[in-house]
């Protein structure tokens, strides 16, 4: 008890996470900070949250070690919250990541912006539809657009994506019609899209299960001798799951071409990072024998670059990598959640200053990559998407009653057949009595 209390305090005193990456000017100075310390002064001075349990000798030693390691793997940022491109400092890994977006064109930047705006618009529409009673539940991705669009756009057509239930932006990048995502939230199915038509697996609700599916799939890719990559999405809460840790280990042992993309949005429903981990999540990778990197998850360019890097090395047969996209869940866990019970508004306000869409807009404007016409046109497109989503959801029919017996088995099952017949007869009995 004493130990864990001692460990918790300094992380809190290290400043609110909200302030984590604000006001950072120099490249690579925002990094590695488990608790997101403010007032970063120079590159490479990351502390990685190792200041836990100040006072004890043992802890002091830990702090030094952690600080040393942290300086090698800081948070990767290529676009500041003010919209300024960060030039690589020349340090090897950082420059390597940056190289993956070095040649990005204004057109591609506008494309990323469009993706994020439309994803947010879709997400807002879904939240509204839940409030109107059209959906039973919605898990908003608000705030995580850059992490999802950046990583999603890094994937190739033949890559395979294993999402949680919040990867609406990744689904968008994979070409899954957004209205397909809403069936399960409306309650007409449990997913319903064909995973193989976009190589985008069904949403997985049990936390972390899909990390193993992704790893197994990647083992299959390797057996086939293909050079496709696989990407598994999960969150900071899932990092505590045995399945995620087993996935890390299997992937490492079999050198599977899988990228573990952890969106650390700071909150697992009501539980903060402090309840999930004693080390920055990206550092977990080291213990399993593959690289881990923390990227500014509100920076679409950095998310794109780092994911391209990770997928590239997976394709080359260099095995798995862990990306921790440091971001923030701006909204509630789902529409059933009430964040006011466990976090303060000022935290959200601080993250709003680092908004992923805002920073790219600032960049597009200051670099003269987009004019008013572009933004106006996108606004129109955005509204049209909202309207279409609204219409499709409202028109979405309830499934046929007998659907509850469908697809339980691929090759059939005597009991299911028997119960289907009984159910149909029971239903028919109402029709008969009404007819009388």
């Amino acid at each position: 008890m004493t130990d864990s209390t001692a460990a918790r305090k300094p992380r809190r005193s290290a400043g609110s996470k909200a302030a984590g990456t604000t006001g950072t000017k120099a490249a690579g100075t925002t990094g590695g900070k488990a608790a997101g310390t403010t007032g970063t002064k120079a590159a490479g001075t990351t502390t990685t949250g190792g200041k836990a349990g100040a006072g004890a000798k043992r802890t002091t030693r830990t702090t030094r070690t952690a600080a040393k390691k942290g300086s090698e793997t800081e948070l990767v940022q290529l676009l500041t919250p003010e919209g300024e491109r960060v030039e690589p400092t020349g340090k090897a890994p950082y420059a390597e990541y940056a190289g993956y977006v070095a040649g990005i064109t204004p057109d591609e930047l506008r494309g990323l912006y469009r993706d994020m705006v439309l994803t947010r618009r879709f997400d807002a529409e879904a939240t509204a539809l839940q409030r109107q009673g059209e959906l039973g539940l919605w898990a908003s991705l608000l705030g995580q657009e850059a992490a999802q669009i950046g990583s999603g756009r890094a994937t190739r057509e033949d890559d395979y994506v294993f999402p949680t239930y919040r990867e609406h932006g990744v689904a968008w990048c994979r070409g899954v019609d957004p209205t397909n995502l809403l069936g399960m939230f409306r309650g007409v199915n449990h997913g319903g899209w064909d995973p193989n038509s976009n190589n985008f697996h069904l949403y997985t609700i049990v936390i972390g299960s899909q990390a193993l599916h992704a790893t197994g799939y990647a083992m299959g890719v390797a057996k086939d001798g293909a050079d496709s990559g696989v990407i598994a999405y999960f969150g900071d809460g899932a990092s505590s799951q045995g399945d995620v840790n087993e996935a890390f280990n299997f992937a490492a042992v079999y050198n599977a071409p899988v990228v573990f993309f952890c969106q650390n949005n700071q909150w697992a429903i009501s539980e903060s990072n402090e309840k999930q981990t004693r080390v920055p999540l990206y550092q977990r990778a080291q213990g399993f024998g593959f690289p881990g990197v923390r990227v500014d998850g509100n920076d679409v360019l950095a998310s794109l670059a780092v994911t391209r890097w990770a997928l590239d090395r997976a394709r080359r047969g260099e095995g798995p990598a862990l990306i921790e996209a440091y971001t923030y869940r701006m909204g509630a866990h789902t529409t059933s959640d009430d964040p006011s019970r466990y976090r303060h508004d000022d935290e959200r306000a601080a993250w709003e200053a680092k908004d992923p869409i805002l920073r790219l807009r600032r960049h597009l404007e200051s670099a003269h990559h987009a004019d008013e016409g572009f933004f106006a046109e996108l606004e129109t497109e955005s509204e049209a998407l909202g309207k279409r989503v609204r219409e499709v959801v409202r028109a979405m029919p309830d499934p046929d009653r007998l659907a509850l017996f469908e697809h339980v088995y691929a090759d059939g099952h005597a009991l299911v057949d028997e119960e289907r017949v009984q159910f149909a007869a029971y239903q028919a009995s109402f029709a008969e009595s009404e007819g009388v």
Partner: protein
Amino acid sequence: MAAEKMAVAKAINESLRRALESDPKVLIMGEDVGKLGGVFRVTDGLQKDFGEDRVVDTPLAESGIVGTAIGLALRGYRPVVEIQFDGFVFPAYDQIVTQLAKMHARSLGKVKMPVVLRIPYGGGIGAVEHHSESPEALFAHVAGLKVVSPSNAADAYWMMQQAIQSDDPVIYFEPKRRYWDKGEVDKDAIPGPLHTARVVREGTDLTLAAYGPMVKLCQEVADAAAEEGRSLEVVDLRSISPLDFDTVQASVEKTRRLVVVHEAPVFLGSGAEIAARITERCFYHLEAPVLRVGGYHAPYPPARLEEEYLPDLDRVLDAVDRSLAY
């Protein structure tokens, strides 16, 4: 080719070998299945002949094994997973119940899960804790899974072939105390459907229904009862999900009495479901309530007590007497 005599373990081994030979997508996965050939040697020699890429020694993590098998199935493979012992399956229970069983329905039939989980189960071998359990009801209760258990070498061989060919996940419970029992296996036979029961001994006075390791016991019970002038019919259920109630019903309509025998605890075990269904189907035929013989509502005991826990000749005969006394 004429029928060969071989042990149950060898029959499974030969069946796996045939599957590996005939379908390049079939994989064997599990702890110690490669070099060692499994702790019961069921996969003996397979890695040597098919390589480490197809007969895969896995890290020691059951959830990881089943979870990655699901991923491999999504990629088009047909993994045959060994869970080393019955009591070790529970770390994988989540993957089995929430993912493996539901993937086909969740995808509205677009994703198939041709995964076989081999689980050596049951007691009678004097083992330590977690090595003698019979958890089949925990799987049969889950829609989306199929559950089978062979009782003899020929079924072990053919039911494995059929389980691997199934596009549904099949939990294949291996009666570990019968691994060394020998029987005739005809590799050219044309097997009947996987999920059907079989009358293995005809009788007129009472039906004994069992599967896996208890079928042999029931045949011994029938022999003993015959000496007392009673004619017992024995039904080998073979499949627990789906369960072939038609075959049991036909038998009970003839004998009018039913005793179900399994090693698993009686409470909410498969015998409970059989009793309920057969009572419903054969109410006017029954001369006695359906009786069950099985394990107690207690943890599987230490080896020195397992003979008290497991159904044996006398306990089954006792139930037969009670049924006939109605």
